[in-house]
């Protein structure tokens, strides 16, 4: 019976599709079904998901901080899985994600899957007992595709959440044209970066044009871009091992190593000669949104803006991003050429249910098939994944390509965003707040002492 009616529907859609093309409607949506040529999606091997049994008509709810306009491309990448299994994915994006998710979990209203961008928050959620351990299928995929990232989904030796998207934070955005006009070279070392900044200051004695523009305003999350600065510089001045100790609080937050990094950041962010191009004095960094800050490069009032790969989606429409375009990014130089530390971040696929359809979807999201599909259905960029087996040639966006290159570079030492790894009270609280106050006038020592005393004692 069921088969019969299914066939009839297929036949009907076939007739409909023919009729539509005949009337030259030109609509190319999935009238025919599994035909991959029609919408650019590819058919994948369904076997890994068939193993979870018949999932037709089941629903998986997804809760994330990825909202419009980035949500539609994300959902597009689920299509092969949906085609294979007949599972409906209920996608819900919220800008209040970090505040709302714990509330929903506590209230017994957890989603099936949440994309948690902070390993620190994952730890808090695991402590509530609501998070399910990753099924063996997911573990196998993660070990095969993203072994370096596995640790971020682990809490107390158990593996919970598979990494999903990935982005590179160690970028400085600039205008290749402006650099060319003045004969500036992309700096290769930290000293060269500061020398270039000084040169730009000297070349613009009026002070209307400054080397740097920065902004850390981000609503509820104001301060986070400044924490990225400190993390990036920590990796450079103190090295990855000390960085790890700092993040795990094996050295105090006000350790001399952190003080050195903060002082180094201050050389740029709190130097009135260097900042804040197009906006005003140092304090304006606190009230300028991180989205707006870099746009001054297009106005020609500043030369450099340090921000992650995802800033690519933020340029005004019509801006060409690329080595010969209006804007492009260079790797934030390390102290010298001998090391190449890279600051990264990404989401973790956290499951609150262990129904077969949820497990199947988790498995799909950890697969190379998904990573490739994500690259193919990518919108305006930001489609790099933690998956090292994904085909980098599928990425369309220039910055995505560069990010993937850096992520798979053997000589690079990657570290996850430290504030995301720290306990939420610090990493999404006092660290943000402390850095904001640091920008508006608090000195280095008071800032570090304040954050240190807020570290949860347990």
């Amino acid at each position, binding site marked *: 019976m069921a088969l019969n009616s299914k066939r009839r529907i297929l036949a009907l859609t076939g007739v409909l599709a023919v009729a539509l093309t005949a009337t030259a409607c030109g609509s190319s949506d999935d009238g025919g079904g599994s035909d991959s040529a029609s919408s650019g999606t590819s058919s994948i091997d369904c076997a890994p998901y068939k193993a979870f049994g018949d999932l037709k008509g089941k629903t998986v709810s997804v809760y994330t901080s990825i909202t419009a306009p980035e949500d539609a491309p994300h959902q597009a990448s689920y299509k092969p899985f949906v085609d294979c299994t007949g599972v409906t994915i209920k996608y819900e994006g919220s800008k209040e994600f970090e505040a709302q998710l714990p509330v929903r979990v506590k209230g*017994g209203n957890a989603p099936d899957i949440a994309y948690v961008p902070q390993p620190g928050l994952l730890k808090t959620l695991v402590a509530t007992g609501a998070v399910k351990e990753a099924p063996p299928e997911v573990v196998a995929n993660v070990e095969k595709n993203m072994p370096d990232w596995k640790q971020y989904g682990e809490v107390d030796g158990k593996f919970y959440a598979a990494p999903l998207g990935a982005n590179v934070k160690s970028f400085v955005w600039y205008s290749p044209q402006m650099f060319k006009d003045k004969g500036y070279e992309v700096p290769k070392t930290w000293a060269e970066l500061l020398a270039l900044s000084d040169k730009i200051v000297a070349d613009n004695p009026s002070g209307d044009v400054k080397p740097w523009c920065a902004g850390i305003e981000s*609503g509820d999350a104001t301060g986070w871009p400044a924490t990225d600065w400190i993390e990036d510089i920590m990796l450079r001045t103190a090295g990855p091992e000390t960085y790890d100790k700092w993040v795990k609080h094996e050295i105090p937050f006000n350790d001399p190593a952190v003080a050195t990094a903060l002082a180094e950041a201050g050389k740029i962010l709190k130097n009135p000669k260097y900042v804040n191009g*197009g*906006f005003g004095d140092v*304090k304006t960094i606190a*009230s300028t949104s991180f989205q707006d800050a870099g746009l001054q490069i297009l106005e020609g009032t500043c030369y450099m803006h340090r921000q992650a790969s995802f800033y690519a989606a933020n340029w005004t429409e019509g801006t060409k991003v690329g080595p010969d375009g209006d804007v492009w990014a260079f790797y934030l130089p390390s102290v010298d050429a001998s090391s190449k530390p890279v600051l990264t971040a990404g989401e973790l696929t956290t499951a609150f249910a262990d129904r077969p359809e949820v497990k199947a979807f988790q498995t799909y999201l950890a697969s190379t098939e998904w990573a490739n599909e994500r690259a193919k259905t990518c919108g305006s960029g930001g489609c790099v994944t933690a998956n090292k087996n994904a085909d980098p040639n599928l990425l369309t966006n220039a910055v995505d390509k560069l990010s993937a290159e850096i992520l798979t570079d053997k000589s690079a030492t990657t570290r996850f965003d430290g504030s995301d790894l720290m306990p939420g*009270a610090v990493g*999404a*609280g006092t660290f943000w*707040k402390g850095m904001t106050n640091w920008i508006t006038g608090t000195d280095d020592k008071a800032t570090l002492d304040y954050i240190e005393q807020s570290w949860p004692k347990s």
Partner: protein
Amino acid sequence: MTSHVLVEVAGKIPEPLLRAQSVAGKFFLMFFAIALFAVVFGLVLFLASLFKGRTGEKFQGVLFVGPAIVLLAFGLMYPAILTIIQSFRGKTGEGSFSTENYVQMFTQPELLLVLRNTAIWVILVPFIATGVGLLYAILIDRARGEAFSKALIFLPMAISMVGASIIWKFVYQYKQTSRPQIGLLNAILKALGFETQQFLINAPLNTFMLIIVMVWIQAGFAMTVLSAAIKAIPDEIIEAAKLDGVQAFKMFRFITLPSIRPALVVVITTIGIGTLKVFDIVRTMTGGQFDTSVVANEFYNQSFRFDAGGLGAALAVLLFVLVIPIVIYNILQMRKEA
């Protein structure tokens, strides 16, 4: 355990009643709620009609008050008690008994600043808003175009706090002095030849700039109530005073003010309670950054962002404790009048 049962039950409720994600679902849910209300109300009326006579009246009273008491108990008392318990259970609100949160609240410099800010708000807003409202009400009383002038100052009341905050954020917008200004206030400063200011960043000026927004919203409410009270003063009293040769200021001091005292008390206490709870303005305009946080904002941050549910609960309890005397004073005043 119980949550499992709840999820089971929830799974059987049709979608519109659970989350109402479609437009039709939302409408359905609305009509369902109205129908449910009507049914419950009808049931209460029906049951009440069954009781007759003197003893019956008592049952009727219980029936009428009952639903309200049940709802208050579940919706207000129960969470309030939970909050108080939580506030005594350590930073996350899940540990063993301790007064740590209250000690923190009154010793940590950062939280002391929050208390100081709230104090500034509560002292300034009710009096300035009422003062402005009163002055305005007297000035326009029986003047030409009174209705229009009233509408002007009352309009901000119609705007939500968040809306008002966004408007004022534009007014305070900062650009370098040398650049074109988009903020009204800085544009004026520039036109007069002054340097432009970062109103929302420079402490403690920024707290006062936020207070102005609250005054702007509340002055209309004060003006409306006080204007009505002024109009209710009997003409005979005013005439008698005039015949006695009372001048304008004395008229205000000895006739107007005593006559509208009850209204003044209501206005000041209402605005006072609203100010204690102020959250939207601070969150929208500065997010509590730059030393502008107040108790309600800090409570939200601690509870929902910093994973410090206990400390958040303690702040909520503090708000509750601070509001109580104002409410009691208000009720006592109303009793006196009645």
